[in-house]
Every structure is written in C-alpha cells, then in structure tokens.
C-alpha cells in the first residue's frame, strides 16, 4: 500500500485503495472490534439466565477460536459495504476509487477464498465475486479533516439485515409511536437476527434517508452516543426497554437482547414522522484503513 504525498495534498492511488479493500474485507471477517468484545464481557457480567450465559460463553469462545485459527468469525461474508470519508486536500480519482474497491472485494473473495454471498436479485445467479449491480455498496462522504482518507469496511450479515423495518408514521403518532415501533420491531426480529444485537434506529428524514440512518446507527461503535441530545435520550430509554423484553441471546431467553440501541436523527417534513430499524448481529464486524501523509493505519 503506497501513499504518495505532495507537499500540500494527500494523493491516494487506486492500487492502494484496491489493496486496502481486499485486506479490510478479510480482516473485518476475522477480528471483532474491541468495543464489541468489551460489550460481550459487559453482558456476560450482568446476565442472570443460565442458558443465556452459556450461549454468551460460546460466542466469546468463538471470538478466541477465530483469532487463534485465523478463521472467519461467522460463515456469512455478508453484503460488502464500504464507507469512504474524504478529508480536505485529498487528491483521489473518485471513479477509479469505486472500481478499485470492487476489485479488492473480488480479489478477497477469490484469493482467500471467501463465500460469495451476492446474487442477482431476479435470476439468483451467483457470480462468485461478492460483487454485482450496486454491490459493493459504497457511501462517499466529505469531511473537514485535512489530508486524510478513511476507508471503512462492513460485511453486513443477512440474518440481521432481514430484520429491517420502516414505517412512515405521522405527526399525530408522536414520539410514543416511534418507541412502540422500535419495541415491536425487536419482538418481531426475535432470535432471527442473532442477538445480542446493536439495534439501529433512524428517526426523521425521507424514507430512504431514515433507513440509511438506521444502518449508520446499527454499525456505529459501542460507546458512541447520538450527536443529537434528544436522540441520545432516546438511546438510553430504548436500550433499557429492549433489554427488558427477555428475548435474550439467540432468542432463547435472557437479559442480553441488545448491546445497545443506537439512534440517528435527521430533520423531516412537517407532515412526516418516519422511523426505521436496522439490526447489527453480535458478529458486529468492522475494519478501517486511514490514509494520511504518514502512511496507512489499519484499525476498526
């Protein structure tokens, strides 16, 4: 991975992006971020149900086995998602960057090898590349941080992604409608979404933005707090509520249903009150590479 640094600009080549995309996909599948590991230890220390405790113990053992055997944590290689944050004074060919991410994803799939979990939605044909129309999913954002480009990789598992819910509530439904929707989504998802989960909640925006916010919330590190004060209050209330339902790890009963409920908010229309839920499973995988003039730092 090479980073060429002009005096006042960071230049990131497509080759460097391709290598990083390949490395991050494989790394994300194998090493769970520290915040999720800590989340497991926290749940294990407070869980009161015997069966739930043994389920958590197996999950914790699996994290260690994956690291020891350098194997994937979960067999679901997911839908590959890449979040790209481009700071100021960065020179990058945006079109080439997107092609490079797809090439890196395909190489990871062929060279490791990984199961390609991606098919054409109508023919159901699997090209065995983990790629297809609009996949990898790539989100590009521009941020203020100078001479920095950050590439985040999230392999999004399907069991939890199938636990996605959107409701275009109306203003008269109020915040209580939002809360009720989240609780009912957690109940409907039950054990199918591989709890303990991070329950991502989007509030506001348009229908598509609301769903996107829910995904951002579900994939945020544990310990992070919603930037909006009202959203942050909702996170605390809903976390307690969801963990009072007794769904438990794997839906077999217990206290540990969610590591946390995360909320993201966007302004919305005077006639609208949209709410969305997207779930991240306990294999809450992420990996990132940060390019700066000093080089590339790989982390979570």
């Amino acid at each position, binding site marked *: 991975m090479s980073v060429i640094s002009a005096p006042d600009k960071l230049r990131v080549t497509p080759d460097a992006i391709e290598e990083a995309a390949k490395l991050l996909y494989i790394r994300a599948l194998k090493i769970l971020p520290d915040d999720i590991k800590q989340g497991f230890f926290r749940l294990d220390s407070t869980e009161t149900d015997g*069966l739930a405790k043994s*389920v958590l113990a*197996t*999950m914790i*053992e*699996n994290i260690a*086995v*994956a690291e020891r*055997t350098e*194997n*994937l*944590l*979960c*067999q*679901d*290689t997911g839908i590959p998602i890449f979040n790209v944050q481009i700071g100021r004074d960065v020179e990058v060919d945006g079109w080439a960057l997107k092609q490079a991410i797809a090439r890196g994803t395909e190489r990871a799939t062929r060279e*490791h*090898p*990984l*199961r*390609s*979990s991606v098919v054409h939605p109508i023919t*159901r044909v*699997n090209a065995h590349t983990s790629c297809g129309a609009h996949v990898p999913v790539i989100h590009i954002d521009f941020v203020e941080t100078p001479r920095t480009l950050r590439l985040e990789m999230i392999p999004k*598992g*399907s*069991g939890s992604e*199938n636990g996605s819910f959107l409701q275009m509530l109306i203003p008269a439904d109020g915040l*209580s*409608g939002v*809360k*009720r929707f989240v*609780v*009912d989504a957690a*109940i409907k998802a*039950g*054990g*199918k*979404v*591989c709890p303990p989960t991070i329950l991502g909640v989007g509030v506001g925006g348009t229908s598509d933005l609301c769903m996107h916010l829910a995904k951002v919330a579900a994939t945020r590190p544990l310990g992070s707090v919603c930037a909006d004060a009202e959203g942050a209050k909702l996170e605390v*209330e*809903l976390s307690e*509520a969801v963990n*009072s*339902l*007794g*769904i*438990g790890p*794997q*839906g*077999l*009963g217990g206290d540990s249903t969610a590591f946390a409920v995360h909320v993201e908010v966007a302004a919305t229309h005077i006639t609208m009150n949209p709410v969305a839920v997207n779930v991240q*499973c*306990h*294999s809450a995988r992420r990996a990132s590479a940060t390019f700066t003039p000093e080089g590339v730092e790989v982390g979570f």
Partner: protein
Amino acid sequence: MAHHTLHMPCTEADIRKLRVGDTVTLQDTLFGIRDATQIHMFDRGRRTRFDLNGHAVIHTAPNVRKVEPTGTNQAGYEAVCIGTTTSDRMERFTRPLMEREGVRIIIGKGGLRDDSARAFQELGGCYLAVIGGAAALETTWITAIEDVDLDDLNPESLWRFAIRDFGPLIVGMDAHGGSLYRDVQSSVEARRAAVLAKLGA
C-alpha cells in the same frame, strides 16, 4: 436436562427421547442444506442422490476451498468456515424434508414455527439450536467435506460433512410439541405492555 450423544443416522425412538432444553452432541455425518437447495428440491422437483433417511441437516452455505480430491475429501472441497444461517426462512420445507426424504433432525439458529413443531410431533423429528455466528468454533467440529450434490447451486449445494463431537446443541423444539422459541415468544409478548407503559408509549 439430559445430555445425549447421537450417531447418525438415528431412529424415531432416539428422537422421541429428546426434550426441549436437553443438549445433544452429534457424531459421524451431517448434511448441509439451504434456501436454494430446498427451493430446487421441493418447488422444482429436483432429487438428490444422497440418502437422508434418519439423518440431520444443518441450515448452512459454507466457505470452501477447491482442492484435489483425496481419500477424505472426495468432493474436492476443503472447509474454510462453516456456520449456520437463520432457519425461519426455510420453515415451509420442514415437512417435505421429513416426509419425502426421511430427515429426523434440523439444525439451525433462531428456531422454526408452529407448522414445523407439528411436523416434528407427528413424524418424530426435532430442531437443534446451534449458536449462530459461532462459525469458527463450529468449523472445528467438522472433519471433512465428504461429498456434494446439486453443486450447480454452490454455495447452496447439498453438502455431506464428516463430523466429530458436533455440539453441544440445544434441543429447541422436540417431538412432543415443545418449543423453546414459542415459550420465549409468549413470555416476551406478556412483558410488552409493561415495557411500553414504562416508555410512556
């Protein structure tokens, strides 16, 4: 809560001994099956050359590596990572799996619904819960990929795995109508009103 070791294939009498909450370790043979496998088998009339009678199937589509066929890996595949997917999507295939193919055990995560519970009770079958997402660990219980059928559906082929000490698995649904998932769901529904009241919702 008893622990049982079952050598595959097993009999109806073996299955009737299991009760919800018991644990089970499987030995010898296990078949991997998935959405596309069952859509092709039961909606499109495809047949397998494998004899599934008395056997266990697990809801999976593995990560594999192509290798030269050897004594233990006749199929030419080596396991990379083998785990378990959500069973609920395959609910409607429980009865045909049992009636047409003679399957006795379904292994998965997240549980199955009431139609499956009835099929298990009537025909003598059960659902064993493996911990979803614990695939690195699960892979250590699989000693070889012995054979594969319907491989045009890869990775959703019908896989035959050799296994050693596969488990412990939890009896989630038994042959007497019991379902841990139904019990938990009822208890969750019963708590819902209090949870919403506390939220002011």
